């Protein structure tokens, strides 16, 4: 017998003879926060992320442009922000090793945890979210769901081959519990509220 058949047969023979129906899972959304954006921002800051909002009346992208002037290599997977390392020139993930700032658009965000969701389509090259030293994430404030129960009803988890929640930057406190940002992945993650282009 193959290992597969062996294991499945052993599992079948040892199944506990008990009636355990699957439970119904509520959405737990009876008391949503007054503002999803404010709740998201608060959760994001708690998890070490940054939130960069342009002053009222100013161009939404202005704070990003300011950040980009400090970077040598910028790779953007969004049409709104231009970088100097076009994704079309990236043939292997390793080509992103020297990127200072990566720019991506989130598929959506989760107020409960301060997470943003990035899919393989959002990232262009998945490694952009990890090899970059810093990540800037555009988020349409209309794309925020209240909690993870709502998040997992979204279509992204059944479409592409990769979808990930980023909640703040890469972090570790493996040595004496001292919190460090920038363990192996990005050193900072900045969310900028920018509505999706119309159409």
């Amino acid at each position, binding site marked *: 017998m193959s290992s597969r058949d062996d294991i499945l047969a052993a599992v079948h023979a040892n199944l506990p003879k008990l009636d355990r129906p699957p439970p119904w899972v509520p959405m737990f959304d009876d008391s949503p926060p007054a503002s999803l954006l404010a709740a998201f921002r608060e959760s994001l800051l708690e998890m070490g992320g940054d939130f960069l909002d342009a002053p009222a009346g100013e161009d939404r992208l202005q704070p990003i442009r300011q950040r980009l002037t400090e970077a040598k290599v910028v790779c953007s997977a969004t049409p709104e922000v231009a970088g100097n390392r076009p994704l079309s020139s990236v043939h292997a993930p390793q080509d992103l090793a020297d990127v200072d700032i990566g720019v991506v658009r989130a598929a959506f965000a989760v107020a409960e945890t301060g997470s943003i969701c990035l899919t393989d389509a959002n990232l262009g090259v998945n490694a952009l979210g*990890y090899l970059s030293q810093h990540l800037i994430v555009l988020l349409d404030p209309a794309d925020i769901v209240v909690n993870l129960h709502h998040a997992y009803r979204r279509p992204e988890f059944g479409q592409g*081959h990769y979808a990930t929640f980023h909640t703040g930057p890469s972090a570790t406190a493996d040595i*004496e519990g001292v919190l460090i940002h920038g363990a192996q992945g990005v050193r900072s993650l900045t969310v900028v509220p920018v509505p999706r282009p119309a159409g």
Partner: protein
Amino acid sequence: MNDNQAAIQAAMLGAELATSGMLHPELAAPSDESVVKEGRRLEHAEGTSRPIRPPSEPQPRGARIRGNRRVSQSEAANRFIAATQHEKMHDERLWDLRQKRDRVMHRIPEWEELRSLASAIKEHTLTHLDEYLDQFEANARSNGIHVHWARDGAEHNRIVHEILREHGATSLIKSKSMLTEECGFRTYMASVGIEVIETDLGERIQQLDNEDPSHVVVPAVHKLRTDVAQVFAKTLGTDPGNSNVHYLAEAQREATRPLILKADAGMTGANFVVAETGTFVVCTNEGNADLSANVPKLHIASIGIEKLIPSLEHLAVFVRLLSRSALGSPITQYTSHFRGPRVGGEMHVVLVDNGRSKRLGMEEFWTSLKCIRCGACMNTCPVYRRSGGLSYGATYSGPIGLIIDPTFNRHKYSALPFSSTLNGSCTNVCPVKINIHEQIAAWRKVMAENHELPLMKKSAMKAAGALLAHPTLYRAAIASADVALNVLPRFALYNRLNAWGKHREVPHAPRQTFHSWYRKNRGTP
């Protein structure tokens, strides 16, 4: 009050706040090295909720392993306790994680409902495990994932080796996986000439120090910064006199990145596997699993067959519970969902049994398969916190280890179920409601029936057995023991014959036994 007095009072109040709730206030650090943003001190991931810093001291090592001989957890624990700074720091940090868990739990009104749901989902899946495994395999295959099956650790290692050989791969970057620890994966790979590089900071420290991980979530939690500085000085060439944590973490990042960029293959584990969509889910704080999965062309995931859950609606329950239970952080920094290979890449999943199907058939112990490896039971356990994970001499330590390890080797780990006070705290914090302390007690019975009792326990148990078999005798003994506890001088309680008095204060005895209270208040039982 003048300004000076006010300043002194404020400083005293600050000091009091900083140390309140600490088990060992003397560990309070004079300055804070954590991240502060917009005036708030961050404590997400496994960060401590207050600055702590112990003086340096040589590191105690773990249990002595001698072939198949019974591991003595208490012998190694004694050495850990003798290393006062290590013991205090370990105790403090893990108790802090437990307190962080409590705080974050209180913010979720439906917490207890989530625990019940998680338990019910796992029990449903485990009682239909063959169907869900079959469903996952079909869906994963249709998305382009190669699915392999391994009966045990040895077969797992051979399968992975074969995949690597076919690709001419000689270096592998990997993220933390308790399953690969079970399989003795790194030892095997070293024997066939494949370089394995752990990319989680804690796991990398342990790999470079030739030690096993001591905790399922924070693998190097038993080490002080000065221990890490020594390991890195020897292996990465850092300054042996510099134990600044930011310096050490940055040195590891810089040393590991070139290895990540040139690795031939990447390996991850999985926290959850969704049958309905053919997805596996990996949760980390460092982003190292996503680097391992997304930089090399080849991604291999090693997954225990108990990780299955039916669908995405169930996944929400577990993601909400995992990091909150483990670290008191609302979610891990990264929660990644893999459904298939990326363009130009190749993805393999190895489903591993390694004793799980057998455990499923054990009437008293099958629910241990519900475990999601959060480590909450370890953080709360008074024995674990004071003896360190390496004292257990097994892949899994702490309360969950006591009930899983004997399924791998009943004789070698026969003393482990006795390393517990049966206080039940582990059961109370378990996010999937495993009755851990009851299973520990049940394992003691199994060991007794199989003549695996350690000698000391045997003579004590014989006397206790006679007592427990006779209710009248038992009640008389308890009443007199309580009186004795209140009147006996210290030397009678804290001596070498009373193992319970070692390193702990015996509790104040109640004025009345429960039995006499019940008889008085509730009539004749």
